[in-house]
């Protein structure tokens, strides 16, 4: 049995690149529409909440509300981009399009495919998150250099949420089940994790829950960088995010093995 699981793990450090490149080629054909689709939602939130609520809220921790919100929106858009790419597009490649089935006939393993899909979803997260950061910088809410420092945090956020969504994909019988993950996990996380208002405003029990959620760690890494403030507990945040990326990754491979290779 243990041998069976070993055979489906990533075979080496580079096999996944072929899967990433396949997705990149498919994306290139529809890039414009895809980019607009990815950006519209977080932009609307940034400007709608930022200007609208910003007038009422005033300053938060000494910065304007929209500057505070920018970091949260960068993390949120990375989360959303990775989650949706995995849940809908990767699920389609696994099921309706039979792409995975074709790849499993080559010398790639299930683990190579999952890793390639995660890397691709993280790439889309970087695109989406960076685009929001660029807008924020252009409008003067953050410094240009902050984008460069944010990118690693955005990328790992992408990996985390792709990895978590991959577990959902490996268990979901059909598209209909994704809405539960979206409404019960993803959306509440936006409000619990300090993306739109400081975690310190919540009751302490909620604050403790937030400390366990991955998006809170992403926000705590990205926001201070964008605001030019010192970042505390970098090791803790990165460690927590790595755990959220790696454990679901292996779990999803084991679940896919049960689902696809029986």
């Amino acid at each position, binding site marked *: 049995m243990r*041998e*069976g699981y*070993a*055979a489906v793990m990533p*075979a080496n450090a*580079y*096999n996944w*690149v*072929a*899967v990433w*490149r*396949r997705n990149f*080629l*498919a994306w290139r*054909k529809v890039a414009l529409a895809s980019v607009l689709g990815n950006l519209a939602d977080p932009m609307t939130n940034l400007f709608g909440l930022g200007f609208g609520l910003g007038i009422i809220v005033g300053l938060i921790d000494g910065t304007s509300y929209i500057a505070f919100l920018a970091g949260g929106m960068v993390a949120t858009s990375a989360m959303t981009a990775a989650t949706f790419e995995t849940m809908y597009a990767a699920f389609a490649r696994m099921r309706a*399009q*039979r*792409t995975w*089935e*074709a*790849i*499993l*006939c*080559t*010398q*790639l*393993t299930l683990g190579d495919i999952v890793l390639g899909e995660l890397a691709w979803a993280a790439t889309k997260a970087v695109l989406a998150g960076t685009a929001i950061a660029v807008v924020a910088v252009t409008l003067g809410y953050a410094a240009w250099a902050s984008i460069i420092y944010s990118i690693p945090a955005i990328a790992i956020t992408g990996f985390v949420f792709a990895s978590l969504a991959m577990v959902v994909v490996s268990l979901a019988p059909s598209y209909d089940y994704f809405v539960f993950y979206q409404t019960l996990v993803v959306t509440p996380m936006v409000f619990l994790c300090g993306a739109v208002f400081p975690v310190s405003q919540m009751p302490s029990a909620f604050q403790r829950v937030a400390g366990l959620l991955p998006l809170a760690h992403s926000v705590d890494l990205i926001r201070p960088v964008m605001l030019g403030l010192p970042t505390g507990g970098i090791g803790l945040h990165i460690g927590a995010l790595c755990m959220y990326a790696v454990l679901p990754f292996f779990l999803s491979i084991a679940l896919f093995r049960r689902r*696809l*290779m*029986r």
Partner: protein
Amino acid sequence: MSTVAIDLSCVRKSYGDKIVVDGLSFAVASGECFGLLGPNGAGKSTIARMVLGMVAPDTGKMTVLGEPVPARARLARARIGVVPQFDNLELEFTVRENLLVFGRYFNMSAREVEAVVPALLEFARLESKADARVAELSGGMKRRLTLARALINDPHLLVMDEPTTGLDPHARHLIWERLRLLLARGKTILLTTHFMEEAERLCDRLCVLEAGRKIAEGEPRALIDEQIGCQVIEIYGGNPHELSSLIRPYARHIEVSGETLFCYAPDPEQVLVQLRGRVGLRLLQRPANLEDVFLRLTGREMER
């Protein structure tokens, strides 16, 4: 490279109470075309997937191209080409892009893929379609592209799961012709099919399966001679039971399937004499084929 390409020994697989592969053993020699023949649900596809390491057997041993499977199936797959039962080409990609993307799955560089693409396109008769989107191709062209794609890594062994199901006769004959060419080049083929004609035309040896069990194995001609060994008269119309008692003395064996009577007769003339003058009967005299073997072994006709 040993001379045995695939070796299965006492392989068993069940899903819950349902036994899909029941103590199956066979060996496929290098360079031969070996057919798995059986009706839908006989376990053919499961066996093909097992050979690729996509299904782990409950018990039994499997070796493919010298590698233990499923433990080291990946190394075997590096030298296998697969034509799956259902097309899984990239519909939005061009023919050329499909080959490029698939070549990368075998760690081939773009240059290495480009070097083999012209020969593959020629083999698949798709030279003029290189830059067409796959979604625009006909069913036969898609199958040929799937075949070309399966050859991208210059495999030693081809695993084909119902390669011509759903194709029109013309497209099917073209695929058969291509497969014979591959056999002439020394490739080994494992073919699953429920087309008797396909098995008879292509396979050097075949294994007849029913409900996951091997019920016969051998060369198609030998199986036919062994199991039937005489001419067949198909009789339509009339009451099969009445007719069968009439011709029984002259028949080696009689099978009734639906409203058709199959009479296996060493001397067909005598049977025809008995039936002469009867109205409403349609008679067809022909040499025996694998269909008869299957009917004989299982007591039922193959679904078509």
